[in-house]
C-alpha cells in the first residue's frame, strides 16, 4: 500500500447477520462523523433474521460525496462463507482485515491487497467469560483495530460507547475492553495508522446522521398526524416504529397516560389505507407507510380516494420489484404504479424526497397538500434513503407553522351557509369544500366511490359524471401550481445538456456533475420533487437540448412520466438506469454524459 488516502475511502464490513455487527459498524461510522468528516453508511442485508451474509459499506469523503463509490479500500472480512468474494472486491492497493484465530488458506490472498490478521475470536475468548459476550465483543474488537489502523480518535469512539450504554454500565466496560483489545493488537502488530486514514475536520457541524424513515416519522409527528395505520413490511417498518416511539415521548399525557395518537396495526394493506381514509374523512391527519406489494394492494382504495376526494398520506419506501422481489434491496420502480394507481382515469400527487431532511420536510408538505387538494399524496422514498443513515443538514422547525387543512367548513360557516354541496367548484380552482362528520347537520354528505354529481348525489348521468371528472382535471392543474418546485442547479458553461433525477439518486448525480466539472464538462441538473411536474420542470426541459433522466429502475419510469406529462418531446429524453438493487453510484452517469456528448458531436 502506498497512496495516501486521507478522508477519502470506503470501508466494507462483511459479517453474518444476527451476530451484533450492525450496531458496531454504525458506531464506527458515527465516530468518523464526530471527527467532522462526512461519511455515509449503506447496509446490504439479507431477507432473513440470522445466519446469512450481510455487508456494511462506509464511505468516508471529506468532499461530502456520499453515494456508493464502487470501490472498497478497507475490507473487514468477518464471514468465512463470503471471504473469497470479499477479497476479490477489494480495490488494488487496498487492505483486508480478517479474524486470524483460525488458520487461513494461503490461496486466499492477493498480491495487491494488504492482508491484516487479528485474532479477534481468540482475544475475546480469552478475555470474556460469557459466550454471548464473546461473540458480541468480536465486533467491538475489530472496531478497536480499525480505530488504530484508520487513526480514528479513540476518545470519540469511547464517548460513543458510553453514550450508547448510558443505562447499562456493565456493558460499557465490556465494550471498552474489547475496543482496547483490538486497538492494542493493531498498534502492536501493524504500522498504524495506515495511509488510508481519517483526519479531523470541521465539516459536519450543523449536520446529523439519520435514516429517512426516522425523519419521515418526525414529519408525521410535526405535521400533526394522529392516526397511523400500517401492515409491517420491509423497508417501511421503521417509519411506524419511530412514529410510535416519538409519540410515546411527546404525545402521552404524563398524568393520565392518555395518548394523543392512535397507531393501528392493520390486518393487511387494504385495511391500512381504509383506516387512513376513515380517519381523514373525519378530519384527522392520517398516514400509512408501506412498500411495493402494499402499494399494489392499496390500488382499489387509492382510486376510491382520488374519486371521492379524500386526503391520505402514503409513504412508499420502495424496494426491488416486481412482486416480492428483493425486499432488502433498493429501487425506484413504483413510480408508474403510484402515479396512475387504480383502474379508471386516475392520477396521484407524488413527492420525492432526496435526503432525510427532505423526508422530514416533504412529509409535512404531503399532509398539507393532501388536505389542500383533498387527494392522496404518495411520498416516494426508498430503502436506501429510508433505512440507511445519511448525513444531512439538521432538521429545523418554524414554530409559526400551522397546518394547511384546506377548504373545510366548520360549524359556524355551515350555520351561516345557505347550502352546502360537497363537490361544487365554488372557487374555480377545481377544489370543492368539505366538512367533517359530527360537526353540523348542514354539513352532511355521502362519500361514495360510485358516480356522483357536483352536489354529491348519486348519478348515472353522462353529463354530470363528465362534469365531475373534468373538474378533477382542473384540480390537477391547481396541484401542479401548489407542489414543491424542483431544485435546479445550473452552470454558466453548461452547453444544453441537463440531468433530471428524483430522490435518492441525488448524491450520485451530484458527484457525477462534480467529477465531470473537474474534467471541464458542465451539465445542469433538475432534481424533481413532485408530480405533477409544474412549470419549472417544463422550463428546464424546454431549455435543454438533451436531458438525461437518471433513475433506479429497469423501465425508465420517471422518463415515462415526463414523456406523458410534460410538453417535452420524448426524443430529447435519454434514460440512465441502475436497477440491480444496490444504491446507484456516479459511474454510469458520468459515462452516459460522455456518451451523449460524443454522440452529439458526431451528429
Amino acid at each position: 500500500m502506498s497512496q495516501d488516502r486521507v478522508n477519502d475511502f470506503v470501508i466494507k464490513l462483511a459479517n453474518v447477520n444476527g451476530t451484533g455487527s450492525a450496531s458496531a459498524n454504525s458506531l464506527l461510522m458515527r465516530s468518523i462523523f464526530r471527527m467532522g468528516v462526512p461519511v455515509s453508511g449503506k447496509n446490504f442485508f439479507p431477507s432473513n433474521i440470522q445466519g446469512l451474509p450481510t455487508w456494511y459499506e462506509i464511505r468516508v469523503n471529506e468532499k461530502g460525496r456520499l453515494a456508493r463509490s464502487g470501490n472498497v479500500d478497507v475490507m473487514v472480512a468477518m464471514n468465512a462463507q463470503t471471504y473469497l468474494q470479499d477479497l476479490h472486491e477489494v480495490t488494488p492497493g487496498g487492505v483486508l482485515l480478517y479474524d486470524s484465530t483460525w488458520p487461513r488458506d494461503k490461496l486466499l490472498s492477493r498480491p495487491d491487497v494488504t492482508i491484516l490478521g487479528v485474532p479477534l475470536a481468540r482475544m475475546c475468548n480469552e478475555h470474556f467469560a460469557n459466550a454471548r459476550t464473546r461473540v458480541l465483543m468480536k465486533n467491538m474488537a475489530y472496531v478497536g483495530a480499525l480505530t488504530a489502523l484508520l487513526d480514528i480518535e479513540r476518545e470519540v469512539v469511547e464517548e460513543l460507547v458510553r453514550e450508547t450504554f448510558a443505562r447499562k454500565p456493565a456493558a460499557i466496560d465490556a465494550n471498552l475492553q474489547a475496543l482496547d483489545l483490538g486497538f492494542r493488537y493493531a498498534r502492536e502488530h501493524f504500522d498504524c495508522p495506515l495511509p488510508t486514514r481519517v483526519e479531523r475536520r470541521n465539516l459536519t457541524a450543523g449536520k446529523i446522521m439519520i435514516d429517512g424513515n426516522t425523519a419521515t416519522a418526525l414529519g408525521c409527528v410535526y405535521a400533526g398526524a394522529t392516526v397511523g395505520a400500517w401492515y409491517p413490511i420491509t423497508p417501511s417498518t421503521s417509519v411506524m416504529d419511530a412514529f410510535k416511539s416519538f409519540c410515546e415521548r411527546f404525545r402521552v399525557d404524563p398524568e393520565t397516560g392518555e395518548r394523543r395518537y392512535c397507531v393501528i396495526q392493520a390486518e393487511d394493506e387494504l385495511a391500512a389505507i381504509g383506516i387512513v381514509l376513515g380517519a381523514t374523512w373525519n378530519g384527522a391527519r392520517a398516514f400509512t407507510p408501506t412498500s411495493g406489494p402494499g402499494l399494489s394492494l392499496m390500488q382499489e382504495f387509492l382510486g376510491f380516494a382520488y374519486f371521492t376526494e379524500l386526503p391520505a398520506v402514503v409513504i412508499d419506501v420502495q424496494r426491488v420489484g416486481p412482486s416480492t422481489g428483493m425486499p432488502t434491496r433498493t429501487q425506484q420502480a413504483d413510480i408508474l404504479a403510484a402515479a396512475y394507481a387504480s383502474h379508471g382515469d386516475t392520477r396521484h400527487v407524488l413527492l420525492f424526497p432526496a435526503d432525510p431532511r427532505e423526508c422530514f420536510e416533504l412529509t409535512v408538505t404531503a399532509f398539507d397538500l393532501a388536505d389542500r387538494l383533498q387527494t392522496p399524496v404518495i411520498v416516494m422514498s426508498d430503502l436506501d434513503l429510508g433505512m440507511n443513515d445519511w448525513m444531512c443538514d439538521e432538521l429545523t422547525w418554524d414554530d409559526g407553522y400551522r397546518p394547511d387543512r384546506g377548504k373545510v367548513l366548520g360549524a359556524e360557516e355551515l350555520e351561516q351557509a345557505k347550502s352546502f354541496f360537497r363537490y361544487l367548484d365554488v372557487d374555480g380552482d377545481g377544489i370543492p369544500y368539505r366538512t367533517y362528520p359530527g360537526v353540523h347537520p348542514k354539513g352532511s354528505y355521502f362519500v361514495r366511490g360510485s358516480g356522483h354529481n357536483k352536489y354529491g348525489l348519486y348519478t348515472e348521468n353522462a353529463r354530470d359524471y363528465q362534469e365531475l371528472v373534468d373538474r378533477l382535471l382542473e384540480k390537477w392543474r391547481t396541484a401542479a401550481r401548489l407542489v414543491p418546485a424542483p431544485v435546479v442547479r445550473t452552470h454558466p458553461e453548461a452547453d444544453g445538456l441537463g440531468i433530471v433525477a428524483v430522490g435518492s439518486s441525488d448524491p450520485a448525480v451530484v458527484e457525477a456533475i462534480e467529477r465531470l466539472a473537474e474534467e471541464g464538462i458542465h451539465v445542469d441538473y433538475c432534481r424533481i420533487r413532485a408530480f405533477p411536474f409544474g412549470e419549472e420542470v417544463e422550463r428546464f426541459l424546454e431549455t435543454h437540448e438533451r436531458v438525461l433522466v437518471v433513475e433506479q429502475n429497469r423501465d425508465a419510469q420517471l422518463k415515462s412520466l415526463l414523456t406523458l406529462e410534460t410538453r417535452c418531446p420524448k426524443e430529447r429524453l435519454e434514460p440512465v438506469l441502475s436497477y440491480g438493487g444496490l444504491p446507484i453510484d456516479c459511474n454510469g452517469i458520468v459515462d452516459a454524459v460522455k456518451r451523449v456528448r460524443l454522440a452529439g458531436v458526431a451528429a
Partner: protein
Amino acid sequence: MTSIAKPKILHKGLRRNGLGLTMRDYEGGMSTLCAGCGHDSVTAAIVQAFFELDIPPHRAAKVSGIGCSSKTPAYFLGASHGFNAVHGRMPSIATGASAANRELYIIGVSGDGDSLSIGLGQFAHAVRRNLNMLYIIENNGVYGLTKGQFSASADIGAKAKKGEENRQPPIDPVQMALALGGTFVARSFSGDKEQLVPLIKAGLLHKGFALIDVLSPCVTFNDHEASTKSYAYTRTHRSTAVEADFVPARAAIQTSYAEGEIVDVELHDGSRVRLRKVSKDYDPGNRGAALDYIRSRHRAGEIVTGLLYIDESEPHFHVMNGTTQTPLASLSYESLCPGSAALEALQRRFR
C-alpha cells in the same frame, strides 16, 4: 344507490322525540331496492331506533360496503354523513373513523357477500378490535346486487338458480363473532321490528363492537324452484323469454312473536325458516353457552334470535389503544407538535 329525495310533508301530530325531531328527520332518500326487500324493513327499524334514542342525526356516521344492503345507508338518517366504501372494506373505514372521532355513533350496514366473502378478514379483525360501532349484516344468503349467486352464508342444500345446490358449509357471522371474542352478538329477522328496534338501540349504546346479524330475505333471487318454469331457469338459459327480467313487486315479510317462542316464517319462494326467540331468562353473559345453544338449536333446524351474548366489561378499541378522551380530530395542533426546541434536543442522538 340512487337517492331520490323523499317529499317531506310534515304530517300534523307526528310524534316528536326528546330533541323535538320527528321520525321523518331520521329518514333518508327513497329506497331503490326491490319492492318487498327485507333490507327496507331493517332501514325502518334503524330510523325508529335512532329516533327513540334522541340521537342528533349529525352525530351519527353511516358506513357500508357495496351491495343492495350496502346501499341502504342512503335511505336513513339523511342528515348524517355517509360513507359507501369499496366492496367488503367498510370495517377499515369504520376503524379509521372511530380512531379520529370517538364521539360518533358509527353504524355500519353490510351484506353477507360484503362481510363473509370479500370482507371476511376485515369483519373478523373489527370484531377482534372491539371497535366502537354497531355492525348490521343484512343476511340473505345471496349476492343480491350481482343477481343471485350464493353467498358464503347460504345453507347446505340451499338451491339456487338452475337448481344448483350449495354443498359448502355456511359461514355464520354470529358464531364467528363469538369465537373471535365479540362483545355484543345478536341475531334477528328483518320483519321483526319488535325485536330489531331494541337490539339496534342496545347495539348503538354498547361500548365496543355490536353485531346484529339480520336475516333479511331477498325477494328477487330466492326464486329457487329448480323447474323450467322459474324465472331463474329462463334467465340463465338465456332464451329471450319475455319475462326474463321481470321482478314482481311483493310485500316485505313481517313477523312478530314473543320471547321464548318459535315461529315459522314462509319466505317468498315458499321455503321456510324457523326462528326461535331467546326467552326472558336466557343468559347472554356466557359465551360458550351461547355458542352451544345456537349450535344445538341449529341442529334442530331452528335459528335462534335475540341478544345472544353481551359483555360490557371488555376493553373497547379506545381503551385498548389508550386514546385520549377528546376525539383525536379535535385536538389542537399545539397539543400535537413538540415544537422546535424538542426537535433540536432530540437530534443530539443523531450526531
